[in-house]
């Protein structure tokens, strides 16, 4: 996963030994194994449908952009915009609600704090499909079915435990004296949050936001059941290429490529800023 915890120390460069070389080779092999489906999807996106469906699979083929053209013609940008709004909106909402909760749990713990934390997590234990039917019924009744607002609320609720748990642990790692110093200096909750706590936990915040974004971006089950033309997301769009007759592998791969590209890009950008980390010079 591209979200790297900022607490992971950059390892020192070890002296090269035979064991290390084979370990490196193994790492490459595993990485290739993991990466191969993505590679295959991207390759398939450039094939003609006939090449894509060929058995045995072909590695050498005449590249075509026709699939991408078909994807764009199928209203890719509407779904892209929906996905962006839903993922961004739900992440923002989850942060707005989750950060104060994490702050309170980290800095003002009580004997009930562990209970609250496990209760927050318990909402994650229910399989989404278990809540699906009631959700469809309720959303249709209150008019949230196939609306962006409805999906933002839903995704924010799903991401809230993640935000609370991760940010609580990042906050708890801050030296308490820094907060006390800012309290004595005259800062209230809002100032402490925006001027002290968030700048110091920025890498953790970025990692959390990225995980939340990726979840919302890729979520399929709820999206496919609760959205239609108005608020469909890219996973729904991809599945739309599945037909019962005719070939669709290449077009579907093109759609997938275009769906994951922004996430990979975002992950890559975030990783660069995450790894930098923050070196504390505050205490000792």
């Amino acid at each position, binding site marked *: 996963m591209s979200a790297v915890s900022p607490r992971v120390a950059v390892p020192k460069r070890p002296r090269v030994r035979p064991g290390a070389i084979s370990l490196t080779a193994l790492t490459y092999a595993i990485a290739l194994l993991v990466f191969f489906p993505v590679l295959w999807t991207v390759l398939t996106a450039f094939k003609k449908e006939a090449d894509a469906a060929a058995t045995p699979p072909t590695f050498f083929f005449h590249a075509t952009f026709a699939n991408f053209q078909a994807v764009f013609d199928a209203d890719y940008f509407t779904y892209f915009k929906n996905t962006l709004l839903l993922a961004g909106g739900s992440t923002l909402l989850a942060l707005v609600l989750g950060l104060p909760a994490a702050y309170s749990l980290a800095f003002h713990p009580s004997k009930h704090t562990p209970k609250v934390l496990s209760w927050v997590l318990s909402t994650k234990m229910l399989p989404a499909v278990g809540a699906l039917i009631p959700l469809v019924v309720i959303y249709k009744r209150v008019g949230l079915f196939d609306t962006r607002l409805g999906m933002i609320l839903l995704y924010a609720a799903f991401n809230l435990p993640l935000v609370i748990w991760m940010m609580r642990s990042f906050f708890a790692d801050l*030296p308490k*004296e*820094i907060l*006390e*110093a*800012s*309290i*004595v*200096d*005259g*800062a*209230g909750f809002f*100032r402490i949050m925006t*001027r*002290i706590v968030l*700048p*110091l936990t920025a890498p953790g915040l970025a990692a959390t936001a990225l995980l939340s974004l990726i979840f919302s971006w890729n979520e399929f089950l709820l999206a496919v059941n609760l959205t239609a033309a108005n608020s469909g997301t890219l996973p729904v769009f991809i599945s739309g290429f599945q037909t019962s007759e005719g070939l669709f592998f290449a077009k579907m791969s093109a759609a997938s490529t275009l769906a994951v590209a922004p996430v990979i890009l975002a992950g890559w950008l975030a990783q660069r800023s995450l790894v930098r980390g*923050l*070196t*504390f*010079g*505050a*205490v*000792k």
Partner: protein
Amino acid sequence: MVRDPKGAPVAEIEFQDVGKVYADGTRAVDALDLQIQDGEFMVFVGPSGCGKTTALRMVAGLEEISEGAILIGDRVVNNVSPKDRDIAMVFQTYALYPHMTVEENLAFGLRLRKLTKTEIGRRVHAAASTLGLEEFLQRKPRALSGGQRQRVAMGRAIVREPQVYLMDEPLSNLDAKLRVQMRAEIHKLQRELGVTTIYVTHDQTEAMTMGDRVAVMLSGHLQQVDDPERLYARPANQFVAGFIGSPAMNMTEARLSRGDDALIVNFGAHRLAVDPELVAERPALAAYENGKVVLGIRPEDFEDAAFTPEAPPERSLDTVTGLREALGSEVLVHFSIASSSSVAPDASEFIESVGDEGTIFVARVHPQTRAREGESLRLVVNTKRLHFFDPETGRAIFAEAGAQTRMTVGPRSV
């Protein structure tokens, strides 16, 4: 800000019967009664866990006050938030904001108080020049040395121009040499600024060198508060006697008896005639005649008899040098006394004592002493400066039994 009718800020701090009990039932501070004068440098000293830091944090508003009241000026601050108490605090870990430059660190509290840009600039630069930080203003804390960080932490307190400074072991993270230097600087700075200061430390040397008055605490209780000279010369109980001064005061069980013309203190195989002046100073001693006391002698009240040949035998004791530690300007001679050591029950865990083979005494003698390990040595004792404690209560025996601890607490009202 509280001001007296003439317009000068009044920053006395008063603890009125203050207690702190944590949620789990731990009692950190008990019935603390203390008044700190405007402009005074008050040091809280004691072993870790004695409640000194808790007391300080209650003044800062970082801990709730469970019992009693704390006043700054003439205002009860129990329910006043830290930012409205007009205090500034220096933390043991400095607690600098790591993502801000030195300048931003200094200016942070001022910005929050909505001062004008020019005023902020003026104060930041004044503080930076006082502390020699001008060239580091644009650096982040991680690019500073320990001593420089400590200065920034001080600067952050100074720029605020508060009524009260609270300092929580601000020097304990520095190396020994820097600590001595900063000790002098903080002391000088406080004199110049004249701001009421509470300074917490576990280091009795810091306490003695810096404080106008020193409050010695143990297990949440105030033991004695006095100026350093009195604390050293007239410790109120065995704990204070052992805690203040280095090497620590020698203490042993002893018996008082009436000699021909003087009170005699007997311990181990030794007899010393108590100086009549001292007996006059401590009239309550008479009640202990033919009874047990705890005798205290400071290492510096011994001298090698070779350097005071005129000393009478009733002021000297013959012993055998155990360990000899030459420190250059002085020599510490360890010797053993065949009597049981005595340490107040509640202070025992903080004061070294030696088990069955008697009590080890330390004498600080002239650097040119000819004392050799294993050889006999005659020591002369300054019997005007003996200390006596009640073996039951551990309290110093002065005028009348039981009145000592009260007497040492500062005035209740002005």
